[in-house]
């Protein structure tokens, strides 16, 4: 008996050590992913942090330490203060607008009606289609001469051709335009998040509230919204982080213009660090995003955890 058992275990013996131990194999399995992320996210992140306190430019790649000099430089620049303010306006303006549209859209799509699937597919489009391509379509709609929006306003008799606004060429209108385009891009995501949350609220809870005399608004804001807050928080993390750090909408629509009126942190970091080659100041500008990102992520994570207990 002993002989048979021994011959049986022999063929696999060489790799048994690796292939059969959970801890060893588990470590081997996660290593490639962790290495990739460490080398191409972790390491660059530390490099960016060091750039921001160095005198590094692409013409003179020195690692000389200059302390907080770069940060003092950019804070004293009035156009940077405008950029900072623009970034908050852009982020919260488009998030609030997107959330309002998302909530109403979700309420419509919650009810079954003929053609709902097609409506949902069409409403998802702004979020699904690559942002650069959708933004280019908006750029054409905002065209200074052939804008379809202006054409419609004129045809409706609301304005005359002489009054037709230059959407991307006037500071306030340009800001409004980038906010609207970004809210437009974000609202289908908000709809989907609201829908996922609202369908997870048990019907009997809503029925019970109705029996107890809760009206439409009360059911919505005292029952449904509090119950779906965790999922809403996750959606908001994504919305805020990706808007606050975005530069593609601004880059394609206005190039930060006119005269810096729509410049946001991501775009300013790109202009200074990549286009002008002043890497250290560019990194300092980009790192201004970090405190906001950290606050948002930690607040939301804490919030989610507390709700789950």
């Amino acid at each position, binding site marked *: 008996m002993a002989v048979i058992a021994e011959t049986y275990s022999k063929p696999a013996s060489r790799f048994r050590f690796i292939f059969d131990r959970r801890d060893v*194999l588990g470590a081997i399995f996660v290593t490639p992913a962790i290495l990739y*992320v460490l080398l191409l996210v972790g390491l660059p992140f530390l490099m960016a942090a060091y750039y921001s306190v160095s005198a590094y430019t692409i013409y003179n790649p020195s690692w000389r330490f200059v302390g907080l000099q770069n940060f003092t430089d950019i804070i004293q620049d009035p156009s940077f203060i405008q950029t900072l303010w623009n970034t908050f306006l852009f982020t919260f303006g488009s998030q609030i607008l997107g959330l309002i549209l998302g909530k109403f859209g979700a309420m419509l799509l919650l009810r079954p009606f003929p053609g709902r699937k097609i409506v949902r597919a069409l409403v998802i489009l702004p979020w699904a289609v690559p942002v650069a391509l959708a933004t280019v379509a908006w750029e054409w709609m905002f065209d200074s001469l052939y804008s379809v929006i202006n054409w419609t306003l004129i045809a409706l008799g609301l304005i005359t051709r002489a009054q037709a606004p230059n959407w991307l060429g006037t500071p306030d209108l340009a800001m409004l335009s980038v906010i609207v385009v970004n809210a437009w891009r974000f609202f289908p995501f908000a709809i989907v998040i609201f829908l996922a949350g609202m369908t997870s609220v048990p019907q009997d809870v809503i029925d019970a509230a109705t029996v107890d005399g809760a009206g439409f608004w009360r059911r919505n804001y005292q029952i449904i919204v509090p119950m779906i807050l965790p999922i809403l928080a996750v959606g908001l993390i994504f919305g805020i982080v990706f808007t606050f750090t975005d530069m593609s909408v601004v880059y394609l629509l206005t190039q930060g213009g006119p005269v810096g009126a729509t410049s946001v942190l991501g775009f300013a970091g790109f202009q200074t660090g990549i286009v002008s080659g002043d890497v250290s100041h560019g990194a300092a500008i980009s790192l201004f995003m970090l405190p906001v990102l950290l606050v948002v992520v930690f607040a939301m994570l804490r919030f989610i955890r507390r709700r789950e207990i």
Partner: protein
Amino acid sequence: MSSRSLTKTLQETSFYGAVVFFVVLAAFPFYWMLITSFKTNADLYSVSHIPFWFNDPPTLEHFKYLFEKTLFLRWMLNSLVIGLCVTVITLFTALPAGYSLARWTGRSGESLGIGIFLTYLVPPTILFLPLSRIIADLGLQNSMWSLVLVYPTFTIPFCTWLLMGFFKSMPPEIEEAAIVDGCSLFMSFIKMTIPLSVPAILTVIIFTFTLTLQEFVYALTFVSSSAQKPITLGVATDLIRGDIFYWGEIMAGALIASIPVAIAYNLFLDRFISGITGGAVK
């Protein structure tokens, strides 16, 4: 008509009115792409023509120009190659990582998984400066291969998280049965787990592809020569001569590039949502 049925009609009308408003809001820019790409230039650049439909008969001249006189086909090919390579890299790293974090590493695996996922939130606009230095050091500047190197930095975290959730919901009994039958842990992963995860793997492939197609910032930063651009970057930045935008061609290109992504998203939307919201809904 009684007042009750009148209210009902009013309610129905305003409901469908709101639905129409949302559909127009969401889809009009795409209708605009579609109609622009088939209009003649004389019809496009006229302030007196009604812009919403064809005043001249539709034309294919923009599509012809796009395919024959621009690098559009090359950009399509570039995007395809980038998408394929990134998908392969992502599958080979995220599949074992997601499995290991879900099954073998216990509580520390949970926090490691959250840690990997959080890197998905580190924005390109912070990383692009150091990454452009790394890419230059590797001799990949101005080449689409730089994107093959960089795109997995967001597809791996996203897909690892997605797969972690999937493997957690898969009953472990089947693999355990394979191990009892004499399979090693590794072979049970290859022979049992992978064939059972085909739906999840398909989701990963679709999302990796669409995420690479949607990316713009890294492509803009690292690639400047026309022949190396992926499709989104090429269409958005390369069909402009000086101050002149080739709107017909731009819209035709945007339309062609948008359609596959839009279809993929609609088919896989529910999985995407359950992927990113993870355990937030019970």
